[in-house]
């Protein structure tokens, strides 16, 4: 087994025994990257010297690939946008500080949709990333670089961010485990904001155990992020190790069974997963999420609204691109932003500004916040009856690069992940099998989504681990 194929648990075992040093893993990843990433394109940049130096200083640490919107001191942080080309982070994000304090080092910056807006990583202004399971296809997004790096054995594990499905959908496309923590579980300090009431950082990993370790290493109270409560971080790995489906109540969503537009193979894999859960001691309970059908609409009001406010900071004044064509302050703003942002980001800024503008606020943003309350109540009601909810993760397996052109069609990728994001609860994507190969497409990985209540990550790891075991 090559060192770049290791997961966190396996790497730690070898490091503990003294059989290898951190430098050996980093070197293996660098040579793997040089040989194979020319095809996949997971990494945007990789400061080899810095990674090796950190490995030497921390010889028992495990290297982690970092999505290019999380600040690491002295390294670029482009958000895959031209507006941040050349930007060098002056500080570490809290998740990076926490990670370093818990036996990990950041190594390599991975690609994403520009400012995390997208579901295929095709919105990156700085590089193309392809799916390691079929290089004609996308890795998903927006954490597509993280998922492609994990799925393609170009790293040990990676950090991503999830606003409406940006960890879970690419994890499903690239056969890895992805976890979106509950809102508030992980600090967002130093993570470039997209939609502040939804953004969370989480792990993409080769196993549920690995995801549990990495989430445990980054989670917790941070005085730099007022949304993080003092609640203790339980031992997620212990929860995963004790994982069982026996006696667990797993909810399946009544409304999803009647949905059109789901790939038949995704449907088959999800149905079989439910049957396997039942065969392994879980009780399957039908639940209802009556407002889930409005979740996409709510999300595409709230997320662009928050994004339009957050991205106002890119004005060409203190950092980022400044237009050479600016004559006064007004044109400095409008032209720096015009030259720096890509089309999807511009679309969402306009959408967000529109729904917040005078005369429209109540009908769109105000109303969306109320419907969001109803969606959250649906989940609270469901979790009074079940331990977890099982749904497909994405409506399709990985699609071909260039295949989806219409923005609204692309948005539908997040159909199953957006409701839990809006409710602020935690959710994972766990590999559940492969589609049958056909003349049109090869066998492709498919994940299912498991959802638990707010701050119920220990239960999520318990059930996800048991699920992973029975799907092997």
């Amino acid at each position: 087994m090559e060192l770049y194929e290791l997961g966190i648990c396996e790497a730690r075992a070898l490091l503990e025994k003294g059989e290898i040093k951190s430098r050996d893993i980093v070197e293996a990843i660098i040579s793997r990257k040089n040989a194979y990433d020319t095809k996949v394109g997971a990494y945007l940049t990789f400061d080899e010297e810095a990674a090796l130096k950190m490995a030497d200083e921390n010889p028992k640490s495990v290297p982690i690939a970092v999505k290019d919107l999380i600040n690491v001191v002295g390294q670029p942080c482009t958000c895959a946008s031209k507006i941040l080309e050349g930007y060098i982070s002056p500080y570490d994000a809290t998740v990076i500080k926490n990670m370093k304090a818990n036996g990990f080092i950041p190594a390599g910056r991975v690609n994403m949709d520009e400012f995390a807006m997208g579901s295929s990583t095709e919105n990156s202004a700085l590089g193309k990333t392809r799916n390691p399971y079929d290089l004609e296809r996308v890795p998903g997004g927006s954490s597509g670089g993280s998922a492609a790096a994990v799925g393609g054995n170009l790293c040990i594990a990676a950090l991503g961010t999830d606003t409406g499905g940006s960890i879970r959908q690419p994890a499903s496309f690239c056969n890895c485990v992805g976890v979106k923590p509950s809102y508030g579980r992980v600090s967002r300090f130093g993570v470039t904001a997209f939609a502040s009431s939804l953004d969370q950082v989480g792990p993409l990993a080769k196993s549920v155990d690995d995801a549990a370790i990495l989430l445990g290493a980054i989670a917790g109270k941070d005085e730099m992020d007022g949304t993080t409560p003092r609640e203790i971080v339980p031992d997620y790995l212990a929860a995963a190790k004790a994982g069982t489906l026996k006696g667990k109540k797993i909810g399946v969503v009544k409304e999803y069974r009647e949905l059109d537009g789901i790939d038949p193979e995704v449907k088959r894999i999800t149905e079989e997963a439910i049957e396997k859960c039942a065969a392994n001691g879980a009780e399957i309970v039908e639940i209802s999420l009556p407002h889930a059908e409005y979740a996409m609409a709510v999300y595409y009001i709230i997320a662009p609204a928050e994004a339009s406010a957050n991205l106002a900071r890119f004005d060409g004044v203190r950092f980022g691109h400044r237009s050479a064509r600016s004559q006064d302050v007004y044109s400095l703003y409008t032209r720096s932003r015009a030259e720096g942002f890509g089309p999807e980001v511009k679309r969402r800024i306009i959408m967000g500004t529109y729904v917040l503008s005078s005369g429209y606020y109540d009908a769109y943003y105000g109303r969306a916040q109320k419907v969001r309350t109803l969606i959250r109540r649906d989940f609270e009601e469901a979790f009074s009856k079940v331990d977890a909810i099982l749904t497909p993760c994405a409506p399709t397996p990985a699609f071909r690069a260039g295949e989806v052109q219409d923005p609204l069609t692309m948005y539908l990728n997040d159909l199953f992940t957006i409701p839990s994001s809006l409710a602020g609860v935690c959710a994972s994507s766990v590999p559940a099998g492969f589609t049958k190969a056909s003349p049109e497409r090869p066998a492709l990985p498919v994940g299912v989504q498991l959802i638990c209540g707010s701050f119920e990550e220990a239960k999520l790891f318990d059930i996800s681990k048991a699920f992973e075991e029975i799907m092997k």
Partner: protein
Amino acid sequence: MKIDVSYVAELARLELTDEEKAVFQPQLESIVKYVEKISEVDTEGVAPMMHGREIVNSFRDDVIKPSMSREAALGNAPSRVGDEFLLPKIVEGAES
């Protein structure tokens, strides 16, 4: 619903080309049409969910700690003079 894309882009301080406006116009209208689905929902008496979780005031101790150095904070400035960001003239009519 007709969106005045030029006007909204101006509010967002975003210069758009005519080509961009022509592409965005129908795309944004179809997105707006889609999100208007929420008008079907009865929200009478429902409180808005303003954030990702219920948050009470979150205070930290009011203790002075070292912060980022001036040099680090200015490190990504597109243009600077000494310890300041350099910008085009803002005040109209003033001597530049």
